[in-house]
């Protein structure tokens, strides 16, 4: 009932083209931001920050990156974790080797490094599509992890490529507590998410979607396929790279190349499939879903087992988790290929008319 746009007339194109044309949406987003920036730091516990909220934001950022590439530009990639690894190791090396570089600048440089690597591995997309491109990006996944293990220089000669990140100092203030790290991650994610939203609603985003939906028609209209696809790879890898740097610096504190495995790439891919391919919000929903589901199952499964008096071990929990994930992904691919974001959109459309059928 409250979600109505009746009486909200648009008299200029600017008003019609804003990100959230409906007033209730604007209020909702502002409320959400206030809760995230003010409410959550006041009430959440340390466990929530370091085990749930920070990884959620970081993976949402990586999923956002992959969504730009796969959801908007239509180029399937299995190398997201590798681009995160590039970001993590690049940020570490910039901190290590460039005297007095501010941490935020090294995060940006890490993103740019990942973007460069992304362009390189995006070159095959000019000739191949779909599954074959996925295989080409799979090469990125294995090659980059191999590189980071093989060349000790990249991890400053540490054994098996493990790096421990430097201290987080911003404008002379050191961030040590989870709350501070959470606020840093949140700020970066909010800024980058807004930039992504602007990109996809502009001519750049339209060019990506045109290439995704019908590349011949796109080129006839005057879109140059090569720069468009490579830009998508660059932007996507930039996001993954920044996510990787945050993953190392704000979440784990010490990472190894094997941590950025194919499993992680798949996890990010599942996030966008479940959350919504081609949706900014879907990236967040998917990340939340994939990260919270295991925690939920951890809590719920022993309880259910006890209810039915079944024997139970922690191995069973992880097996069931995998089964549930597989089933959910099949469910979404068949029933709702556009994911949670589409369900949310349908709910909103229904709500606008409720209680009337039309």
């Amino acid at each position, binding site marked *: 009932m409250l979600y109505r746009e009746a009486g909200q007339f648009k008299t200029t*194109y*600017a008003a019609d*083209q804003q990100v959230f044309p409906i007033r209730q949406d604007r209020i909702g987003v502002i409320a959400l931001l206030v809760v995230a920036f003010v409410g959550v730091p006041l009430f959440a516990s340390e466990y929530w920050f370091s085990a749930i909220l920070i990884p959620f934001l970081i993976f949402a950022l990586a999923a956002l990156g992959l969504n730009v590439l796969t959801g908007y530009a239509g180029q399937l990639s299995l190398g997201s974790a590798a681009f995160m690894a590039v970001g993590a190791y690049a940020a570490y090396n910039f901190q290590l080797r460039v005297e007095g570089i501010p941490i935020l600048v090294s995060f940006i440089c890490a993103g740019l490094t990942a973007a460069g690597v992304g362009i390189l591995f995006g070159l095959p997309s000019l000739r191949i599509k779909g599954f074959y491109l996925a295989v080409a990006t799979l090469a990125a996944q294995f090659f980059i992890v191999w590189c980071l293990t093989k060349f000790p220089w990249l991890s400053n000669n540490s054994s098996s490529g493990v790096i421990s990140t430097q201290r987080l100092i911003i404008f002379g203030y050191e961030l040590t507590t989870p709350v501070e790290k959470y606020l840093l991650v949140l700020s970066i994610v909010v800024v980058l998410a807004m*930039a*992504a939203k*602007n*990109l996809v609603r*502009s*001519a*750049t*985003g*339209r*060019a990506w*979607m*045109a290439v*995704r*939906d*019908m590349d*011949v*028609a*796109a*080129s*006839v*209209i*005057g*879109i*140059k*396929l090569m720069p468009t696809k490579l*830009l998508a790879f660059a*932007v996507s890898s930039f996001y993954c790279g920044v996510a990787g740097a945050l993953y190392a610096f704000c979440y784990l504190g010490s990472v190894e190349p094997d941590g950025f495995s194919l499993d992680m790439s798949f996890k990010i891919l599942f996030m966008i499939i479940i959350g919504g391919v*081609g949706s900014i919000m879907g990236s967040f929903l998917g990340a939340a879903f994939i990260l919270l589901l295991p925690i939920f199952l951890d809590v719920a499964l022993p309880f259910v087992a006890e209810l039915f008096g079944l024997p139970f071990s922690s191995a069973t929990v992880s097996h069931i988790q995998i089964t549930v994930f597989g089933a959910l992904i099949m469910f979404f691919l068949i029933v709702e290929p556009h994911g949670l974001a589409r369900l949310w959109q349908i709910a909103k459309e229904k709500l606008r008319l409720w209680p009337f059928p039309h």
Partner: protein
Amino acid sequence: MSKKIGDVILDLQNISLRFGGVKALTDISFDVRQHEIRAIIGPNGAGKSSMLNVINGVYHPQEGKIFWHGNERKRMEPHMAAQQNIARTFQNIALFKGMSVLDNIMTGRITKMKANFIEHALWFGRARKEELEHRQKVEEVIDFLEIQHIRKTPVGRLPYGLQKRVELGRALAAEPSMLLLDEPMAGMNVEEKQDMCRFILDVNDQFGTTIVLIEHDMGVVMDISDRVVVLDYGKKIGDGVPDEVKNNEDVIKAYLGAGH
């Protein structure tokens, strides 16, 4: 006819196109004059669509020369056609299914937008200004085609006839000097065909756009086109004003078959 037909703007000379051993087009020559409606007709598989693909650079003919405004065209890529102000629609609708009508038509103006992706990301400067300016132009196209009520609808949800109209809109948004239409009326009912004819004639008349058209509905072709080229098995068998073509022996044979 009151309208003024101008000089030759597109001149195709001895075009031959092969795919391996298959000859799609053999030694075809014809020209298109400014401001005319030029139809290309012929039975299925005659090479009509290939001809359009040659004109806008999707296919590269092995032999022959193409002159655009008097200059010979050498290397040609599809996106260069857009820069030369040639727009087209496709036989099987080639809209961007995941985007709204508005976004589809906005995409038609993409070559006219100059802001780079960093400006887009920051929604700053030219990005913001262009988005509004071009929206204005796009709304004019939407008004012209009478599709105001569906501007926010994803094109995948629209019925066939409207999709065809949106595709015409996307081509018109580029303000082309030449418009290539590949069977704009295929699969339409009489009413939709009438609308489409009206739009084509209006575009030709109001904007002075030159139109090259492939169409199977002979009534429509003979009514609206100024000159007609007839292809059969990749060869040109007739060329001239509709009445001339209608009475051409070879054309009648190609359509009705020989030996009756």
